[in-house]
């Protein structure tokens, strides 16, 4: 009796465990210290590289000890990173809801809160983009996009006060010397010249093609086509360089190739499209025909996961940067092998 009860209990426990965790998604395996996706026998495509936390990343050895004694240790660290962009010479620019605008310089090995030099009210920084030596930062508190130089000095502004209630993403198109602003209160994408002249506007609130319901982020491909995460329509819409609707993909759900809280978007050099999701806590990769390729990550504070990831960027070497908002860090990955295979 007791043995059969035990067997039944074990069977039930197994069933419940399967029910609870069976849909948890494929987790990366840690093999010889490396975290890769997907698991064997599939070919490894994405590898975890490192975690960026802030000033402490460079505080090693004597210099670190000295700055610790001086009380400087860990002064600048990511707390609630929001948007990220990759500039020249190993510079990363990050907006952080607590820390403001942060320059993370991987070459000079320093982390600077550059917003302080602008001399403006910098509360609620949102989208950040880089082009031609200039940094473009959407600031919700003033409703404008600030233009600052590499050192953080203010150069100019785009828009009139309160024009952009929540500029959640700002992306520079260096080929066309343009700046795209995504505002999820206007439910629009607004195109400006780098000097701040209005060029054209895409969309209005709605669910039809070319309309948005809380657009969240934007990325460009090599041709300058515009990819917009249309968050509460649970889709990605693609527009040409004149703002004309081209195509869309995606739907809401809990399985792969679906979105629950789509946030960031980026493209690699092969034209593959990466979409970050703040509830699925992963990014999903699609090829340019919108075929689903892979997902990376799950809900975790460990290095194979995210907690409310908000934004992503991919540099020219196909290194992938993700602002992992509630984990207070930036996760870095490398695309190992991005070509399409059939």
């Amino acid at each position: 009796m007791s043995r059969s009860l035990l067997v039944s209990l074990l069977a039930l426990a197994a069933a419940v465990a399967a029910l609870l965790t069976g849909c948890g998604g494929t987790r990366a395996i840690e093999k010889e210290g490396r975290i890769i996706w997907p698991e064997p026998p599939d070919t490894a495509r994405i590898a975890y590289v490192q975690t960026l936390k802030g000033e402490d990343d460079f505080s090693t050895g004597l210099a670190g000890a000295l700055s610790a004694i001086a009380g400087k240790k860990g002064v600048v660290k990511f707390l609630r990173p929001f948007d990220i962009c990759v500039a020249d010479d190993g510079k990363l620019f990050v907006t952080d809801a607590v820390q403001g605008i942060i320059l993370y310089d991987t070459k000079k090995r320093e982390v600077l809160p550059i917003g302080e030099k602008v001399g403006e009210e910098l509360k609620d920084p949102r989208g950040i983009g880089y082009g031609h030596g200039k940094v473009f930062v959407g600031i919700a508190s003033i409703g404008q996009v600030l233009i600052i130089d590499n050192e953080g000095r203010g150069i100019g502004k785009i828009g009139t006060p309160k024009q952009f209630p929540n500029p959640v993403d700002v992306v520079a198109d260096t080929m066309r010397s343009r700046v795209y602003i995504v505002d999820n209160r206007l439910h629009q994408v607004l195109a400006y010249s780098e000097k701040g002249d209005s060029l054209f506007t895409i969309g209005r609130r709605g669910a039809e093609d070319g309309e948005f319901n809380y657009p969240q982020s934007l990325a460009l491909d090599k041709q300058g086509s515009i990819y917009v995460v249309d968050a509460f329509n649970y889709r990605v819409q693609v527009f040409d360089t004149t703002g004309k609707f081209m195509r869309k993909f995606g739907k809401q759900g809990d399985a792969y190739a679906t979105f629950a809280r789509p946030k960031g978007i980026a493209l690699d050099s092969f034209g593959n499209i990466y979409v970050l999701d703040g509830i699925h806590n992963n990014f999903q990769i699609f090829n340019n025909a919108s075929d689903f390729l892979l997902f990376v990550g799950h809900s975790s504070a460990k290095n194979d996961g995210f907690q409310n990831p908000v934004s992503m960027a991919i540099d020219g070497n196909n290194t992938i940067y993700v602002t992992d908002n509630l984990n207070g860090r930036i996760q870095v990955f490398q695309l190992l092998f991005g070509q399409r295979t059939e």
Partner: protein
Amino acid sequence: MKRMLFVFIALLVVSVWSYGQNLKQVLPTMTGGTQATRAAMLKGPHDFTPDSGAVNTFGDDSLGNPVPHPTGTGAKGLCNYCHSPHVPKEGISPPLWARVSQVGKTFGYYQDVNTIPSGYITDPGTSDNYSSFCLSCHDGSAGIFAASAYVVAPFGLTGGGATQVPYSANVVNGEFDLQHVHPVNFSYTGFATNNPQEFYAAENDQRVWTGDNGSGATTTVRLWAGTMQCPTCHNPHMNSGIGLVYSSSYGKLCVTCHKK
């Protein structure tokens, strides 16, 4: 063998029953049924339908079916934005880069029809908590002010800028500035046990207190696995404002936990 099977079936029945009980605990936030909840939410702050107030495309959501699935597609359902529908795994092509290792996977959060309340709490100190769900919008994106900057997640009682209530002074441009918020995602039961002179003991690990809300209706100040989460105080199915569960007065809500 027969006996073993009987025991297994009995245990299965018990577990299904307890699952049903678990569902019942979730229902207080759905007072009046989904029709009433939906009606209350229309044009409210959590109505994200593109035309803010469209009658959504629900199927059979009579009161006898407390948690209906939306039959509509796309963005038209009012509930979809948080209670995301399941997607059948069948018919979706396998990931081209993971034809073996990721076939048939889902992302886990929506295995339960009550997704958010009961599906989210697995590890209150790190992740998968109810508050994280709220913060997936209230990080500066759809929720315009970055509550995530001030909510202590992950987690504890010593985050920046916390604990300034009441909130009424924090309305900016018609929206609530969530920069002065109460800590969440900590073990209230543990905290109250350790500080009995300051805090009332919770009734159990699912609620601090339940009773008359001052206007004749029953309200519950809820906990999730003993932890305080955003909806301990806020009902997300609100029509306006910040949806306090005990809305007759700020002070009355505070003193369900705080002795002074």
